[in-house]
């Protein structure tokens, strides 16, 4: 009897599994078409010397060897990391500060918070176009404002020395509100008991921040760091619209180089190799950051 029941239930389970597959099939098809196939095809293209308008030729790892010896490509890596560092570090500091401010109660807090997060809602290309006009060394409003307070005119994105920090400034302006929102969410979830105990013990505001708030919101900060790092690494629209990788190659990040290879030079084989290398870099950084986040959880 027991054996008969087991056979019956096994038969029923088998037919249910067959039904489950049909429900999963659409999602599998989409994932295959949108993620798996493009990845496999990109890997395949990276092994070919293929320029649009010419026949492709299988060359194995030659594209990767060319990247390893290309001074122009190699110079994009530190540049990308520099831009990413500025675009992550500054929003984190400023976002943390802003979150602390907006965590307090004061009149018109809601309205001011709404204004503060407005840059996040704007289209990056539109922002870039406006900033391009503002950065004009002779006609831009920023230099005009600087001269009003006696500061010399700056070259902003028109100098190889200042282009990366200037572009990072635009990123900071747009994405600091995102960090603020993440940290604000973290602050709202913190328990109040440690603060009550600290106040009873006579701790100062700074001590409460340093020994209570900061360690507790560190996991949230790490989430913000991870998100900002991935976004900053693949930042394209701001850089392309404002400086197009110039002056010269002073703001040519990996993404800009990739775009140039694929869509200006039509070297899709070489560009695919860049994609693979770039993916490895992003993956490596993400793993490091996730590991760091795991170590910093206060309630693990």
């Amino acid at each position: 009897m027991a054996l008969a029941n087991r056979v019956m239930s096994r038969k029923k389970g088998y037919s249910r599994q067959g039904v489950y597959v049909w429900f999963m099939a659409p999602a599998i098809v989409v994932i295959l078409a949108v993620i798996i196939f493009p990845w496999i095809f990109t890997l395949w293209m990276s092994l070919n010397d293929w320029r649009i308008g010419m026949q492709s030729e299988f060359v194995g790892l030659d594209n990767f060897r060319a990247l390893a010896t290309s001074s122009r490509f190699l110079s994009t890596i530190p540049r990308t990391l520099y831009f990413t560092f500025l675009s992550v570090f500054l929003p984190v500091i400023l976002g943390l500060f802003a979150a602390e401010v907006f965590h307090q109660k004061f009149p018109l807090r809601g309205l001011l918070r709404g204004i503060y997060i407005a840059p996040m809602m704007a289209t990056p290309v539109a922002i870039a176009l406006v900033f391009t006009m503002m950065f004009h060394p002779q006609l831009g409003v920023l230099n005009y404002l600087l001269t009003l307070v006696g500061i010399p005119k700056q070259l902003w994105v028109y100098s190889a020395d200042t282009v990366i920090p200037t572009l990072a400034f635009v990123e900071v302006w747009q994405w600091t509100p995102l960090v603020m929102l993440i940290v604000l969410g973290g602050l709202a979830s913190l328990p109040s008991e440690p603060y009550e105990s600290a106040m009873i013990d006579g701790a100062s505001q700074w001590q409460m921040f340093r020994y209570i708030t900061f360690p507790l919101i560190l996991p949230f900060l790490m989430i913000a760091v991870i998100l900002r790092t991935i976004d900053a690494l693949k930042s394209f629209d701001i850089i392309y619209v404002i400086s197009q990788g110039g002056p010269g190659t002073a703001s040519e990040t990996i993404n800009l180089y990739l775009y140039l290879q694929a869509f200006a030079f039509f070297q899709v084989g070489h560009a695919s190799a860049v994609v693979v290398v770039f993916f490895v870099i992003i993956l490596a950084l993400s793993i490091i950051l996730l590991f760091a986040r795991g170590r910093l959880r206060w309630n693990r």
Partner: protein
Amino acid sequence: MNNKMNRREFIKRSALIGAGTAAASLLNACAPAATATQAPAATAAPAATAAKAVFDWKRFKGEKIEALLIKNTVGDLLVKYQKEFEDLTGITVGADTPAEQQQRQKLAVEFQSGQTSFDVVYYSFHVQKRLFGKNKWVADVREYLNDPTMVAPDWDWNDFSAAGKAWATEADGRIDAVCNKIDYFILYCNKELFAAKGVALPKTYDDVVAAAQKLHDPAKNIFGFAGRGLKNANTILWTSMLLGWDMDAIDSKLNLNTTSAEAVECAKFYQNLQKNYAPPGVAGFNWNECQSAFAQGQLAMWWDGLGFATPLEDPKTSKVVGKVAYVVTPKGPKAQWAGMTGDGMGVSSFSKKKGAAWYYCMWASNKQMQARTLAAGAGSPPRNSAYADADALKSLVVPKDWVDSVIGSGKIGRATLPVIVPVTEFRDIFGVALTNMIGGADAATELKKATDEFKPILEKSEK
């Protein structure tokens, strides 16, 4: 004989012939009485009458075509008068006008895929001609030109200058497109600044340097000169200047002349002007930044294409209305040539509506549209008749000086970029070198580095 040599020599010589022919035609065109008696239609009347009987604008009525244009003054004109074409032919047009760079990417990807969403394509000969020709991406329109039932009797292929025909013709004789705009590099000069310091308009390259030196006054926010400094965009300025040494950056045998003494001297000329007499930040300037600065009266001279003149004469945005001298490219150390570029329109080889698409190309390049191009200051029409069109000359949005500059440049026009497949890499690699020179890098060293980097790319592309 080597086909590649034929191709380049063909283009170069056609440009020279075209310059002379255009000059003769334009001079004739400026005498209205002479134009009427020299009209080709008079001698072709019997054929034209017969052709009128069989040619029908409504032949493809009811069809719908897609036109991939570019967002520029010519593209704007085509969209503005699109209804005229639709009423004339009964063909519905869906016109797309993306920005230039995005349009070039879109068409390359679609052509490569073997299927295009457009039937008509607007493209730049100086950047894409070799790529299109090598891959036969656009249809050979000779079958239409030789078919009287497919050419409007008053369209007149022979109204095109030799330069216009040469741009549209491949080395193997295919006519891939119809040229609808030629642009020449000229020197825009602020007459007021020149007059204030008693400086004559430049006639030679040395005059340009001398004028820049005399007029440069950064304390008053006046700069002697500006040209494109942004990589890729700046290369065409340098290659235009190089023509003054009677030299092309790449010769007809695909040899790079970019490390020659002339090329280095030209690079130093470019470097001197940009480093010492241009506004700070010029290394990041494209034509639009230069145009803005010139329009605000901050530049004494600006060297660029003549198609950018219209905003300078717009009182709403310009402070130099009526103060601009449109100077034909000055004479270089060895020669006087005006760097020339060209745009055209072709029928996609993958189109299933080639007939209707050809009708659109024909309309877009007809005498009336070309006259409108001239009137709008959008560039130099390759049709000779445009310069004699009284209505166009009356409704010019730019001064007559500009037309004189066009005519003068037409006499000395010469292709400024090499007709090769990897022209974008050429512009990019040498553009970086030129930008570095503005920052003080040694011209010879930068050119050598760029040449070494580009040479294998060029060799591989022409295999």
